[in-house]
């Protein structure tokens, strides 16, 4: 009995729901063809929007993302290369610096040796010139001394001859000369 009454109640509720549904349908103008038209209309709208807007824009956004990612990748690579290049350059510069220092030192040493050599040569040359000059001066002086002695002896002999009034022999002249010279040199 209970089951029958339950089913009867259920049936009555279903009938009420159907009546409400029918009422709603009438009141709100629900219509199969209109509903179908709206569904088709929206699907066409969505399809066209996907074709003309979402598709191309999503593609473009993806492309831009890819370009940005590629750019970032490139940037990283360039930064890495730059760091490596800076490292290599620094090493090259350090090496060049060492080489330059070595060359400068060698040049300095070479220059120093050369300068020393040239100085020694100059000193030797100067000493040579000095010695030559001294020798020449000595020779001149010796020559002048001997000429002076000879002239002096001649003058003394001549003077002696005039004072004494006699003709001096060569031995006399020789002796007078030697005596005079000995006195002068003393």
């Amino acid at each position, binding site marked *: 009995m209970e089951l029958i009454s339950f089913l009867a109640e259920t049936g009555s509720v279903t009938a009420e729901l159907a009546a409400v549904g029918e009422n709603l349908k009438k*009141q*709100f*103008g*629900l*219509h199969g*063809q*209109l*509903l*179908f*038209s*709206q*569904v088709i*209309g*929206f*699907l*066409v*709208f*969505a399809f*066209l*929007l*996907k074709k*003309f*807007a*979402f598709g*191309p*824009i*999503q593609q*473009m*956004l993806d*492309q*831009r993302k890819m*370009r940005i990612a590629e750019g970032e990748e490139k940037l990283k690579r360039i930064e890495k290369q730059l760091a490596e290049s800076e490292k290599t350059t620094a090493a090259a510069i350090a090496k060049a610096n060492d080489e330059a220092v070595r060359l400068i030192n060698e040049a300095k040493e070479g220059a120093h040796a050369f300068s020393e050599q040239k100085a020694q040569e100059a000193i030797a040359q100067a000493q040579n010139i000095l010695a030559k000059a001294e020798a020449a001066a000595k020779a001149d002086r010796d020559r002048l001394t001997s000429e002076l002695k000879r002239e002096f002896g001649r003058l003394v002999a001549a003077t002696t001859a005039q004072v004494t009034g006699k003709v001096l022999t060569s031995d006399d002249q020789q002796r007078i000369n030697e005596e005079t010279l000995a006195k002068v040199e003393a």
Partner: protein
Amino acid sequence: MQASLKTPRPSETEQPKMRILPTTLALWLIGALPALHAAGDGPPKLPFNAPIVVDLGFFKITNSMVAMWIIAAIVILVAQLATRRISLVPTGLQNLFETIVEGLQGFLATIMGEKLARETFWFFGSIFIFIISANWMGLFPGIGTVGHYMVDAAGNKGEFIPWLRGANADLNTTLGLALVFFGMWIYWSVKANGPGGFLSHIFIYHGEGKGFIKAMLVAIFFLVGFLEVVSIMIRPLTLTFRLYGNIYAGESLLELMLYMGGKWLGWLAALPFYFLELMVGAIQALVFTLLTAVFTSLMCTHEEEGEHSH
């Protein structure tokens, strides 16, 4: 009266705001005053159903359908203009569309994960753009107010039939949108879980536990599954009536305000409600999109994917 006289005065800093509010209210009430003389005609009543403007027998066209086609045509045209000469460096309309697409997709990705948001974007993007465009288009002057009167055989003026009506102020449209979502929801859910997984997701307990407690949980989850089925079946209806109700109520309110404002000041009476309806239009589009996205996400996003997506 004494008490009202003793009401403390607002502070000096609050005065400018307080002055603006009464002025606005006064202006608005002035706009509403002519309703007194117009009250004799009775307020207009927006019909619940969208009137048929073209009847070819087998194919009927309502004014909301016409509005929908116009919205669709405008949106598609603008979209095509935006993407006609699409370039890596965006300008003008392309910028606008890219902002909308990127913003929406990002928003959906926070709900349903990057992958699912991308796969289903054609639907959620279209739904959002369609609803917001339709809601805002309903606010344009002439929609619901420009039309013709039905004339009977005797030449008597009958019901006024507007040529256009807000597309979402028609239950056929909102039910159509909800049914499309429902169909797609079933498709996405079965695709993501398989037919068995789909049913298992609803009826089977997947948590941990042992012995009696587990048996209890399995039984409870199985019974709750039936409630879940009812909830799932009700979803299209709630989506349908929420959107329809809000938009219909908004349009009715605007019509009433225009009527209350009278012939010359109706615009002033309705003005604040236009701003309200702009907001309601956007919120309803967002709510519909958000709810449908959440329903999809609940069924299609697995925990690990969800975590990744956040």
